[in-house]
């Protein structure tokens, strides 16, 4: 029996960027863990997830809202870019469609290239007094125009000021975009420099009238080869940031209308890494007070492909003169959660000896913070060095694993009356690494029943199966979650609550003892049995 309750703890993991929020989160988690479980279900809490509806849709009424200002800040990177779209809105005076609904929808339009790259989205509604997280819904491409995708948030009527009020609402749409840029040229020599190109909207795309707006594109490195539209067409470059606009009084977007396409060709000095597949297995053991995690990872350097062949001597010389080939992946530091220990790093032909592991003590108060955002002194750092340097276009598949103390580390807690709660990270976030396909399997102790769990964001598929391992008699219940297009934002916790009776605890020792005694007795009997023919 599996009851799935989603969309609860997402609220716990929001605003994790500020230290204050971190503290708040920790307190909240402690509160959660110390209270009876049922109390921690605040109903109707909003989530940050972009729920998807696949059917194509049509544009809303353009007169509902007015954008007073529109600022799109795009932060480009290797494989995971991010965008922050800030709009100041107020309901249009002409819109007077009285609906019974207590919510009023606001729509965003994104170009299809960008919409398909969205791996994570979050909307924040800010007014002068409050700050609220809204759920982002995706409606897919427009019926009339497949190049534009529609997203919406539902703004509660209560927070909408009257049309006459002077202070407009601020709506922020944060998105994380996987594989937004691509290498140009697509092949580069081993010691050459790598450039990426971004192509997208350089102007404003909104279904509502916009009074003024700008598009800012921030590059990771100040060396920018070219940008379009260029300086003569109104774009400005300062440092590593390109600003397109500002634009004033922009008409609402209608299907077929042209939005100026822009592009930025910039240098990237780090390897563009993506995990094509990440297969995680988490085993919960009450006997060992242990949570064992194992990640099978297929890693690929998605940067410009290597032109010609790899030359060891050139690589060695570059390393020697410390002008290491920037887009070659030689080492990768993975921040494991605090308290991780006994880490290993293997691949299909054995142990890889070139790795370093710096363990750190457990920190139950910071579980909800993704480990890549914790300071390095607080996390256990597993610095892996692949067997060979991973050049552009090369693959490397490997396995890493580690253990965490279940109780001491704060990952699991007894709720009394044989009920337990465990928190399992969906994945280990690594900064600027896109994870294309993630599958996480959580294996609970043998004999666990009444399993309920909740996921912090929408999954592609959720299933349960039986996992049979070490001397199990009837197998362990397990939950399999999978999701495509993940990034560092998806390292949040999955909470699983289950019942485990003492008899289930003792099932295995009793079974093993009984079988051993049986074997010994039958051996003793057989030895004393004379089969000789005399």
């Amino acid at each position, binding site marked *: 029996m599996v009851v799935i309750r989603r969309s609860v703890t997402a609220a716990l993991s929001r605003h994790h960027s500020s230290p204050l929020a971190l503290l708040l989160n920790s307190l909240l988690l402690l509160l959660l863990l110390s209270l009876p479980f049922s109390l921690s279900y605040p109903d109707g809490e909003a989530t940050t997830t972009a729920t998807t509806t696949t059917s194509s849709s049509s544009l809303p009424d353009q007169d509902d809202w007015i954008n007073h200002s529109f600022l799109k800040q795009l932060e480009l990177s290797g494989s995971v870019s991010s965008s922050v779209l800030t709009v100041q809105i107020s309901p249009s005076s002409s819109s007077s469609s009285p609906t019974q609904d207590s919510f009023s929808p606001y729509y965003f339009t994104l170009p299809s290239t960008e919409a398909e790259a969205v791996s994570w989205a979050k909307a924040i509604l800010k007014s002068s007094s409050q700050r609220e997280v809204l759920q982002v819904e995706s409606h897919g491409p427009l019926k009339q125009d497949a190049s534009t995708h529609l997203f919406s948030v539902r703004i509660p009527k209560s927070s909408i000021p009257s049309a006459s009020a002077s202070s407009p609402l601020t709506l922020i749409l944060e998105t994380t975009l996987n594989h937004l840029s691509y290498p140009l040229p697509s092949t580069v020599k081993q010691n050459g420099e790598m450039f990426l190109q971004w192509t997208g909207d350089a102007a404003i795309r909104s279904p509502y009238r916009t009074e003024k707006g700008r598009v800012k594109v921030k590059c990771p490195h100040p060396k920018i080869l070219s940008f379009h539209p260029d300086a003569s067409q109104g774009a400005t470059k300062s440092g590593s940031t390109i600003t397109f606009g500002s634009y004033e009084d922009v008409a609402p977007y209608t299907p077929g209308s042209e939005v100026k396409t822009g592009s930025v060709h910039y240098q990237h000095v780090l390897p563009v890494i993506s995990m094509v597949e990440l297969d995680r297995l988490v085993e919960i053991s009450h006997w060992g007070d242990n949570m064992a995690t194992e990640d099978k990872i297929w890693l690929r350097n998605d940067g410009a492909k290597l032109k010609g062949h790899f030359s060891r001597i050139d690589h060695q010389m570059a390393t020697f003169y410390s002008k290491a080939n920037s887009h070659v992946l030689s080492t990768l530091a993975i921040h494991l959660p605090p308290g991780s220990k006994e880490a290993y790093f293997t691949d299909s032909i054995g142990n890889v000896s070139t790795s370093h592991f710096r363990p750190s003590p457990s920190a139950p108060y910071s579980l909800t913070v993704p480990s890549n955002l914790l300071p390095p002194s607080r996390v256990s750092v597993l610095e892996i060095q692949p*067997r060979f340097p991973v050049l552009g276009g090369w693959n490397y598949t490997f396995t890493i694993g580690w253990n965490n103390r279940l109780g001491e580390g704060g990952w699991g807690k007894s709720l009394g009356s044989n009920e337990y709660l465990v928190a399992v990270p969906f994945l280990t976030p690594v900064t600027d690494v896109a994870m294309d396909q993630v599958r996480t399997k959580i294996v609970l102790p043998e004999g666990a029943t009444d399993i309920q769990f909740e996921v912090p964001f929408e999954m592609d598929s959720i299933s349960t199966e039986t996992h049979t391992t070490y001397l199990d008699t009837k197998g362990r219940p397990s939950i399999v979650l999978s999701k495509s297009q993940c990034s560092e934002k998806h390292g949040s916790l999955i909470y699983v609550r289950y019942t485990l009776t003492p008899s289930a605890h003792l099932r295995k020792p009793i079974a093993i003892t009984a079988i051993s005694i049986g074997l010994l007795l039958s051996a003793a009997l057989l030895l004393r049995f004379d089969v000789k023919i005399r």
Partner: protein
Amino acid sequence: MSKREAAPPPPPPSSSSSSGGGPIASIGSWLSEPKNNRNVLSFLRTIIIILLWGAAISSRLFAVIRYESVIHEFDPFFNYRATRVLAKDGFYRFWNWFDPTAWYPLGRAAGGTAYPGLMVTSGIIHNFLHSINIPIDIRNVCVLLAPAFSGLTAWATYMFTKSMKDDAAGLLAAAFIGIAPGYISRSVAGSYDNEAIAIFLLMMTFYLWIKALKDGSALWGAMTALFYFYMVAAWGGYVFITNMIPLHALVLILMGRFSTRLYVSYSSFYALGTLASMQVPFVGFQPVRTSEHMAALGVFGLLQLVAFVELVRSHVPSNQFKLLLRGFVVLIAASAFAALVALTYGGYIAPWTGRFYSLWDTGYAKKYIPIIASVSEHQPPAWPAFFFDLEMLVFLFPAGVFILFRELRDEHVFVVIYAVMASYFAGVMVRLMLTLTPVVCVSAAIAVSTLLETYLDPKEPLTAEQSAEDVVASEALDSNGAKPSTKLKKTKIIVHSGDSSDEEKENASEPVSFDNPKSGIFGLDSRAFVSIYTLLLLLVFVLHCTFVTSTAYSSPSVVLASRNPDGSQHIIDDFREAYYWLRENTPVDAKVMSWWDYGYQIAGMSDRPTLVDNNTWNNTHIATVGKAMSTNEEKALPILRKHDVDYVLVMFGGLLGYSGDDINKFLWMIRIAQGVWPDEIKEADYFTSQGQYKIDDSASKAMKESLMYKMSYHRFNDLFGGRQGMDRVRGTPGPSVSPKLDILDEAFTSENWIVRIYKVKKEDPLGRDLFSANAFEAGKKRKRIVSNSPSSSGTGKAKKARKAN
């Protein structure tokens, strides 16, 4: 004489006085009850055997602890790969497994050309463990199979030796075989080869044979046949059993020890064993069609004849008839032999294989089959190897054989023959040290246990006076009184030779049994000296075995270790680095050419097709690779193209000082290629005019132009800032100008340059040949040989123009 007789006889020493008083005495009295004694002894025996098992396993785990659970060396990688196929796809798939990636483009019917015993054993263990939900990885089953079976070997050796002498000798033999380096060398964790289980099967078959022979039991004969079948399925060395047991039977017949016990046990063993062995696909009809197996058949026939003669003799009293029968036997035997020779010449029975000939003529392999000679384990051992692998056992071994010779029961004859044969074979091939080790352990254990029994026996012999009295008494009884008393005075020690048997008529007058108080050791000092010395010897043996195992036999050879300046271990993992790169970043069907040594490793770790591998069944194919490696680029390119080679892999140890690299093996490649193309490849061309094998600037032209040389030293000088590089293996400078490659591109080189992988260049898109295309790139003049190429380049025209001027 008169003085001694006058002296009063001292009271005979009692055993109870020497065993001390108090609780020990009470335990002693409790033990002396036969029932308690038996239970305690059997309990102790079980404990000791379990402890020996533990010792045997733990002494083989150095490699796992020091490195990791990894498959060692070369051949085990094929076995491991085959086992993976078996564990994944099941037995039938394995049985019919055709491996298209090996021996490209020929392929290999791997299921039918391998001894399946090892893989099936691991497959069964793996499946059993999985059926009780122990999710062990198949690799760990493979890695730990050899240590686990070494424990079983210890037990089988215990049973074997026990049937030769007694429990004590058996336990000693088990201890010896458990830790003897001669056996450990082939059974450390990770050494997943046929020998890992074969030695257990060998000892088990021999033990069962002895048991069947002793009892004359068809049941045990059938059990022998069963284990013989297992052995045939597991290792090519089964031929040793196929010839040892008939030889034993033959010697027994010649010694006049034919008995119905021999007849029953041998007939049941041979009939069942031969039929069973023919079920192994790789063996097939060999037991009736090759010379190696004819001895067993001959002895089987001879036994039938002898049995028939014996039968007739027991019924027909006439002397003439006996003579006739004897003539009949000789005639049949002679005609059978003649038929064998005729069939061999007629081609129905294969003559001995080359490997077999090389056992008799040590120079044979080098002359006719260089592939066999090129393997280091097929060389004759240096004499310190015996001491290195067996330590003190080597000098206890003859003593043990001697002790067995004195008694010479039927089973002792077996050990004596085994000792002689195995000693010879071990002297011919290093590898066969393995078959020598068990018999050395058995013999040495018998010697040591005899020695200790003699010196630890609490009973003191009668003094000379008493014995003289005894002699007088016996003289009185015995009419032909010799003078053993004088003998006794000189020899303080009289070696015990088991229970006195009736056969040793000449020994009957001499005291051999401990029950006879005349034999034994006087005094505590001589006992203590010899016992302590023997214990020290045993202790040093343990130390030696541990030392040898740890230093010599526990390196996986896939992973190398060195020390950092601070003393910590530094792992050199170049092989796996390069193999894994091949696996991850080349097309799945990319063909890799390398010398055959690395074939199994490439197939196992990189999962890519190879041209040749360690299953050296096709000499011509290997010679082709040898030729491609040893000729110049122009001749090598057509070979590479014809075999669809995408990558060429070479080992180069010059940077690190890794001596097992391809330049050191290069002479064998040349020799093997020369064997097939004597006109094109000549070994002498690769030596300097002074006859030296050199790699620096004074190397011969053929050497410098060879593909192997060019691949090894390609861009080597760049490591030294463009100056002449220093080759640390050869201890000489490399070439002063780095060789240029026209047909290959460097694709990957491992961190320490041990593995270098080159990619064969694609055809030039403009249709030029690769040499002129390269020359054009480099801005050089074009070579003459391609002067009428259709796509003549600018340089060619310029050259012609210059010529015209």
